[in-house]
Each structure stands twice: as structure tokens, then as C-alpha cells.
């Protein structure tokens, strides 16, 4: 069985076996007469198994002869299952290579344990209205009667003095939420699931709890093989998993992204779960949000008090989110003596100052696909495709002799 990420060799054995068990062999179906066989070690198919073991050979020859025989110059056309006498027309090595270039075709399993049971096409009379209403769920916003409402507008130009800072963005988000509540009412707002979203989730957590959350995450980095979720559950026994996950995506990651967005000198993978920001920076982010809340209550829009906070802060050497965003660019090395080190596929961004031991690190330096060594992208039990067209259509000719695709 292929996985979206590969597994150990041990499990591979199991999965292949499982896959083999799954498949059904249907000698009567011309299209499906090929039993699937995935050699763990490709060479073992031809080298270790000799001609007496006909199965792999008959599979390969049947498969190729059936579909590609006339197009495959290196095999003889004489094949008849287990009676097959394989006479290479070219040196063994070439045949071996060409056989290896024809990966086995994974079959679609058939049987009562695979296909769905197709219902009869009923008439409207037979349908049960009560059942249907139940199945349609709960209507929150009814189908609109007109198309006259304006929709699709993006954000307007920001005219704030602290434009593009984290605080500015937060303010605008709050305004957007408030105007939405005004438009649709608080009840619908809640029913749409908009209540516990984004920074609003902070109100459900105390400052101490937030500090603790961040501490637990940073002291259990994945790079050290730790699982911070286990620790989080142990640290917050009264919190449900959903609450922890909610905080994680609505507050924790959001703040991290806010930092990443303002670090213009680094290419960041925003989907990297393990990208870590200096704890102090998060402190700043957290405290400024609480400061924000107080300031908003007082309707004070200036950020002068925030400025003072920054200069007095012992964290001045850290990347400061608001400062960064105001300046536009930050020269990380000047500010904080941080350096880049390449370690394996990780880019470790370490703060040489001894203030805190948390590291900047991310698996993938750039916002691209993960490198091929990453376990999520490769499928180790599938043979590589040297030429996909050959794989699809067979070598040389692209199915010109193939009558199988003609319709009924």
C-alpha cells in the first residue's frame, strides 16, 4: 500500500502484503489479468527468482505482451502464462533494464468489499421530507432572494499612523468583525463560528496560561524529538484538546506569522510547524496585545507608550515586531548578532546573546515544496518514472496498437 509518506522497511513488508491480500485476481477479465506484485528489491524479481518461479515472469510477460508486446522490441511474443518460455531478443541486461522501466500497474480491487452498493433511482414521491430536512442540517443564513448585495470587496487603503503594524492590523480586524456583527447580528455571527476566531480566543486564556503555553511549546521542539502536545495536555489538564488546538492556530501561529511577515530578510515557510520565534518576541507580541486591549478601551490610538516599552525592554536585541514593521526592513545581524547556520536541511537561526535559549529554526528555508528527502513527499514503494509517457503508454509506440481503449 502506498502511503502519502513512506514508511520503514519493516512496515513496507506488511503493507505490501496487505496490498497483495487486497487485490483480487480475475483471470476472466482480460483487462485485469495481471496480478500485482511489488518487488521490495527490484533486482530480486529477476535475479533471485529463477525461471522456474513463473509467477513474476508470467505477470511481466502477460502484462507486457497483452498491452505492449507489439511495441516492446526486447521481449519475445511467446507467452502463455506459466508455460511461458522467455527468449530474450537482446542481452539480458537490456531486457532487465527495459522490464524495470515498466513499473507494475496497481490494480483496482473488485468485490463486495470494495464497490459501493448502488441505490435505485427513486421518484420524488418516495422521498421522506422529514429525513431530508434533517440531512440538510441547520440553516444559519437563508438563501438570498436577490443578487443586489455588493460582495467581493477587499480592504481599503489604510490611513493609520502606525500603518501595517501588528497593532494596526489588529485594529482593522476588530473593526471588520464589529461591522459584520452590525450587519448580521450577534446570534448569526456566533452560529457562523466567527466568535472564537483569531485573537478573540485570547480572552479565553489568562496571561499566565499564555506564558505557560509558549514555554511548553518552546521547550519541546520537534528538532529534539519532543512532542509538545503531550506536554500541553499534561500542563493544562482542564483544557480540552480542542481548546488547545484553538489557541494554537488562533493565537500562537497567528503571532508567529505576524513576526515572519515582518522579517523581510528571511525566507520563511509559513507552513512549517516548527518555525520558532524567540520567546521574548512572543512576550512582546503577547504584552502588546494586552496593552492594545487596554489602550483600545481608553480609545487611545497613539503608540507612544508602546515606544517607551520597546526602549526599556531588555528584549531590544530581539526582533521587535512593531519596530520592524515601522522601519520596513530589519537588519537582523546588526540588531541582534544573530547568525545563520546550515545544519542538514535545517536553517538554524540562533541568537548569540545568552538571553534565552530558544532558537529560530525552520525545516525549509524557502516557501517551496519540501525537499525530496522529506518523508511526506516520496513514496518509496513505487518505482520511479524515467519517462512518464512510456509508463503510461508503453515504450516506443504510444498505444497505437491498443484496441482496449475503444468504447463498446
Amino acid at each position, binding site marked *: 500500500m*502506498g*502511503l502519502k509518506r513512506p*514508511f520503514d522497511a519493516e512496515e513496507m513488508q506488511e503493507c505490501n502484503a496487505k496490498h497483495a491480500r487486497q487485490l483480487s485476481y480475475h483471470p476472466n477479465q482480460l483487462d485485469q489479468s495481471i496480478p500485482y506484485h511489488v518487488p521490495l528489491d527490484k533486482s530480486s524479481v529477476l535475479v533471485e527468482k529463477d525461471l522456474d518461479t513463473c509467477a513474476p515472469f508470467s505477470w511481466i510477460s502477460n502484462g507486457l505482451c497483452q498491452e505492449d508486446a507489439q511495441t516492446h522490441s526486447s521481449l519475445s511474443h511467446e507467452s502463455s502464462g506459466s508455460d511461458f518460455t522467455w527468449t530474450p531478443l537482446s542481452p539480458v541486461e537490456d531486457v532487465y533494464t527495459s522490464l524495470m522501466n515498466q513499473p507494475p500497474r*496497481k490494480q*483496482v480491487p473488485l468485490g463486495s*468489499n470494495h464497490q*459501493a*452498493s*448502488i*441505490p435505485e433511482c*427513486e421518484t*420524488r*414521491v418516495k422521498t421522506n421530507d422529514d429525513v431530508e430536512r434533517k*440531512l*440538510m*442540517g*441547520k440553516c*444559519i*443564513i437563508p*438563501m*438570498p432572494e436577490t*443578487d*443586489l*448585495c455588493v*460582495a*467581493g*470587496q*477587499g*480592504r481599503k487603503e489604510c490611513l493609520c499612523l502606525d500603518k501595517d503594524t501588528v497593532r494596526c492590523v489588529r485594529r*482593522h*480586524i476588530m473593526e*471588520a468583525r464589529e461591522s*459584520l456583527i452590525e450587519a*448580521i447580528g450577534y446570534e448569526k455571527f456566533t*452560529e*457562523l*463560528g*466567527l466568535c472564537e476566531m*483569531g485573537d478573540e480566543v485570547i480572552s479565553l486564556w489568562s496571561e499566565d496560561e499564555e506564558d505557560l503555553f509558549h514555554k511548553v511549546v518552546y521547550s519541546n521542539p*520537534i528538532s529534539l524529538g519532543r512532542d509538545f*502536545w503531550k506536554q500541553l495536555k499534561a500542563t493544562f489538564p482542564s483544557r480540552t*484538546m*480542542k481548546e488547545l*488546538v484553538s489557541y*494554537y*492556530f488562533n493565537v500562537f*501561529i*497567528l503571532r508567529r506569522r505576524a513576526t515572519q511577515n515582518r522579517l523581510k530578510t528571511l525566507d520563511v515557510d509559513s507552513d512549517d510547524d516548527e518555525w520558532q520565534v524567540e520567546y521574548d518576541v512572543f512576550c512582546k507580541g503577547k504584552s502588546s496585545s494586552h496593552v492594545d486591549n487596554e489602550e483600545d478601551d481608553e480609545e487611545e490610538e497613539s503608540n507612544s507608550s508602546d515606544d517607551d516599552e520597546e526602549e526599556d525592554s531588555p528584549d531590544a536585541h530581539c526582533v521587535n515586531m512593531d519596530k520592524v514593521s515601522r522601519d520596513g526592513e530589519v537588519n537582523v545581524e546588526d540588531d541582534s548578532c544573530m547568525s545563520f547556520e546550515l545544519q542538514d536541511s535545517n536553517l538554524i537561526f540562533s541568537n548569540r546573546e545568552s538571553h534565552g535559549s530558544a532558537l529560530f529554526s525552520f525545516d525549509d528555508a524557502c516557501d517551496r*515544496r519540501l525537499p525530496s528527502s522529506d518523508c*511526506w*513527499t516520496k513514496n518509496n514503494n*513505487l518505482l520511479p518514472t524515467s519517462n*512518464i509517457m512510456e*509508463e*503510461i503508454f508503453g515504450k516506443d509506440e*504510444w498505444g497505437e496498437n491498443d484496441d*482496449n*481503449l475503444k*468504447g*463498446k
Partner: protein
Amino acid sequence: MDTDESGVSLPSGPDGRKRRVSYFYEPTIGDYYYGQGHPMKPHRIRMAHSLIVHYNLHRRLEISRPYLADAADIGRFHSPEYVDFLRSVSPESLGDASARSFRRFNVGEDCPVFEGMFEFCRASAGGSIGAAVKLNRQDADIAINWGGGLHHAKKSEASGFCYVNDIVLGILELLKMFRRVVYIDIDVHHGDGVEEAFYTTDRVMTVSFHKFGDFFPGTGHIRDVGSEKGKYYALNVPLNEGMDDESFRSLFRPLIQKVMEVYQPEAVVLQCGADSLSGDRLGCFNLSVKGHADCLRFLRSYNVPLMVLGGGGYTIRNVARCWCYETAVAVGVEPDNKLPYNEYFEYFGPDYTLHVEPGPMENLNTPKDMEKIRNTLLEQLSGLIHAPSVPFQHTPPVNRVLDEPEEDLEQRPKPRIWSGTATYESDSDDDEKPLVGLSGIDGQTMDRDSTGEDEMEDDNAEAEVDPPSS
């Protein structure tokens, strides 16, 4: 407005016809978590939802919280042992449950047991079943469930991050009302679970565009065409890395047009897996959001009941962008590129825009390759002389709706051509005669099942019924 709407031989232009769109969203979906480091993040659905609402698209949609499908609903496809397993297993029971069960049902690795897993499945399945019911009842023209589209799940096992195949369940619901359903899958991975489920029937045609070769799940060969009664009713479009907008469109449009012509589906299900977008963490295609959405745009223009589902997508900010944009396409709105302020605004930095340019990736699919693939598949489709169980002479072809400008709200509906159990305006047997579609003239809802004298022959005679109460 998009200007590149051309490309088919039928009259084309901006697709302006309004559609009634029903959208399903489970508010707690974002709090389900597959596990540390796992690329599948249900939170992306919440991000999409936030964008959709802050773009004011909710003004153009019906929004429902889905019914949570129960074991009986899920058991309409999945085997009882598997459903019992899903229902009973939990992270705490990991020690108790036999390792054999985990292996048997393929749970534990790609498909980890996570807290609330069965509830998550119930919401996903409930959304797709609900979407199907909306279409069956003609309460909507398009029904969306971004929480669905989990196309790898099999009858008795989990696979590829999917546990319950909501798509199969949704299609089974549609099959109660529609004789032929076409399933189209644009996830970068082959839609194996759905194909397998319907491999032996001609009532569902499955079409999948996917990366093939050294890629999960390994099925989806061009020669997999179906079996038994379903032979030639499975279409597989195997592709190489680097698929771009233009190449994709050059395959999608002609093939789907042919599918619509020869198969004449009465309903369409489109799986919009967003891992075929450029820059996806697991994918290897190079589609832009617009290129991806062009598929939906094209299908929408047919005015056939359409179910739109989610699926893969592992660079979550792009998933949210894509599904938000596709929701806008469904309702007929072209949103601004500058994102509105929303709860997850920072996820979309540093550009904070809706559209993302494809990367400088090499397209390994040469024009010659694609021509070959296209011709092979068109030939396969040509073999389907007429749609199954429908005598040819009674079935007018499914065609694209003649286009209207978006802004013209005063328009008189142009005649629409519709196949299947449409209401005929006259007794004429003439295939060319335009038929009144689902909504009828002046927006009046017509009952699709009431028949004129030239109702096509069918095994199941359909009785005249009253129009559904709205």
C-alpha cells in the same frame, strides 16, 4: 472580470448566469488536529470560511451547519466492521485496540487516530450528504462543502488522510434522484477511493486528473477504464509534474466537454483538492488559483446541478485563498485581489493578496504528451455512443448555457438546453428544441419530474408530482 473565457467551440463569454448556492460549514472543524507535523490541517477550512465571510460572500449564499452523519449513514458505503472501528477508537484506546485492527483498517500512520476523529468524519460526511439533498430537492444549483472531498477512503479502510469517503456517500444520495452522475477530481492525487467504489457501474462516471508515477496512491493509469458494467466509465488523466494553467485547461476543457456530451450527466460532483496549486507542500503541479478555479467556472456554465467539495491542500494559506475564490466563482462574484481584513490576515502575509503567481517550475508535460493523452481519452469517450439507459433519440445533448453579462439583472433568461428529465415546452420531439431548465422562465421553479408527452423511455416510469415546496 476574467477575460480568458474562450476556448470551446460553443458560444462563450463571461459566464453570468446566477446560481443559487448552498454552503455547508461546521464551526468546530478547525479545532480537529491530526497531530504534530501532519500536513492535513482542518484549520484551513476555517481560514477559508473567514475569508468568505469577510468578502461578504455570505450575502450571496445560503449557509448551513451540516447534520452530523451517523454510523448508519456512513454504513451506506463503508463496511460495518470498519464503521464500528472508527466509532470506537480513540487516542486513549491506542494501547487496548489490537495492532491488528490498526493494520487491517490502515490507521495509525498517514491516518492517525486523533481526538474527535469520528466527529470530524461525521461533519465531513454530513456536509456532502446535505449538499446532495439540496441538489436533489432543487433547493440549490450549486452546493459546497469544503469539509468534504476526502477521496482516498475505501470501503473498509482509511487511506491518504481520509477515513470516511464523504464523496461516495454524497454521490449515493444523488443517485436516488439522478440517473447519471459524473465525478471530476482535480486533486493532485488520483481519486482512487471514489473510482474504486463506482468502478463497476455506469451510473457514475469518474474522471480524475492527477500526477501519475512515483506518487501516491499509485493508481490512475490511463488504461484503468472501469470494469464490468462500468467499463469505459472511468477516465484517468495521468500527468507529470509542473502542470500549469494553460496546459491543464487544454486538457480539462475538451475532455470534460466530451464527457458532458456523451455521458449527459444529470449531476456533477467536483472535487477541488487544492494540492494541485503551485507551491503545495505535497503537490507538484503549478496551477494558480485562477487556473484551478477555471475548472469550476467551466462546469458552472453547464447549469447542471453541481456539488463542489474540498480535498487535499497542504499549504494552508493557499488552500484558503483557492476555496474562497472558488466560492466567489460559484456565486458569480469576482473578488478584489487585496484581501479584506479577517481573523487570519497574518497567515496571508507578506503580500496579503488573494491571488498567488505560479512559480518558475518546469512543466514536464510536453504539448506532444498532452496531445497524446487527450486523443487517447477522447477516443475512449467516443466509444460511448450514448449515455447508458437512455435511448439516444430522446436525449438532447447537454450543452453549455448561453452566456449573459454579469451586470444585467433585468435580462430575460435565454433558452437553456437541458437533458434528462427536463420539462418540455411543447410536444415536439425535436432534439434541437431548447428546453426549460431547472429554474424555468422568470425564475419560477419548475418541477423537474413533471413530464411532457415526449418523456424519454425509461425503466422507471416517473409519476407526475407536485413541485417541491420551497
